[in-house]
């Protein structure tokens, strides 16, 4: 019964909170309309995600978020430096392959998004069996180092959160 009408309780909660924050006031009307959205949207989109992803404890998620935020800050300064002070020809742009240990689609999506937002790397593609990511580096004199960095810094933590 609950599973049928609330296929993703966490998604419903997030939608309700985001709606209240968007309207920026807490009143009965806002909460009721938010609740309607929170029930209807998961129902009509539930075909796209039949499985309910397992999400780990809040502490691990906060730690991951802070690490990613810090890396984004550092990434911005590094990439800004590369753009301003390096000749375009001297940049060693290349594609590297990151083999994945993660299996859940949500975890892989999060990892791909994180890679795109952090130091000089953009996720381009996924292999058809979802076992490796193709990552483009703006400046990578040491491709293996980039792969190791991604695996230890992000993938291990995501594995704890999602699996």
């Amino acid at each position, binding site marked *: 019964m609950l599973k049928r009408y609330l296929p993703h309780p966490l998604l419903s909660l997030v939608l309700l909170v985001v709606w209240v924050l968007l309207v920026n006031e807490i009143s009965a009307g806002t909460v009721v309309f938010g609740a309607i959205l929170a029930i209807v949207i998961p129902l009509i989109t539930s075909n796209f995600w039949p499985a309910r992803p397992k999400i780990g404890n809040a502490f691990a998620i906060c730690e991951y978020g802070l690490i990613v935020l810090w890396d984004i800050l550092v990434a911005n300064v590094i990439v*800004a430096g590369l*753009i301003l002070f390096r000749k*375009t020809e001297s940049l060693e742009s290349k*594609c590297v392959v990151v083999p994945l240990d993660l299996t859940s689609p949500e975890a892989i999506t999060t990892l791909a998004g994180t890679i795109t937002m952090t130091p000089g790397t*953009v996720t381009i593609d996924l292999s*058809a*069996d979802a076992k490796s990511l*193709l990552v483009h580096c703006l400046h990578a004199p040491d491709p293996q180092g980039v792969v190791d960095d991604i695996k230890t810094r992000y993938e291990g933590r995501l594995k704890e959160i999602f699996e």
Partner: protein
Amino acid sequence: MPFIAELVISVLIVIGGIFLLIGSYGMIKLRELLPRLHAPTKSTTVGVGAILIASMLFFWIERGHFTIHELLITLFLFLTAPITANLIAKAYLLRNVDPAKDLPPSGQGEGWATFDPVGPDGYDPSEEYNPEKD
């Protein structure tokens, strides 16, 4: 408004402006599409972030009402930027790149999804899209 608040807000706006400028300059300076993708996905996040924080502080201190809209904008930006970058990169791969010559092998049983969409269980997403069928 106290002087220190003015100072913090103006510094944040200037930092944001500088990063946005560098991001736009990177779009011109880098000559190929894939390196070019790095400029807008990186430098703009801190640029936009700094300006949004400045806006939040300004309305909080000067007008006295606390809004959280800026944090939501940041959240939506973080959700959409990687997806846009990924779609642009995939379109570029499909049109301009030869997977046998220009890309490293995936090291697994299957190729890259853009060129070899058939998964290990034989599922081919392109079969679902067939405009001539009906």
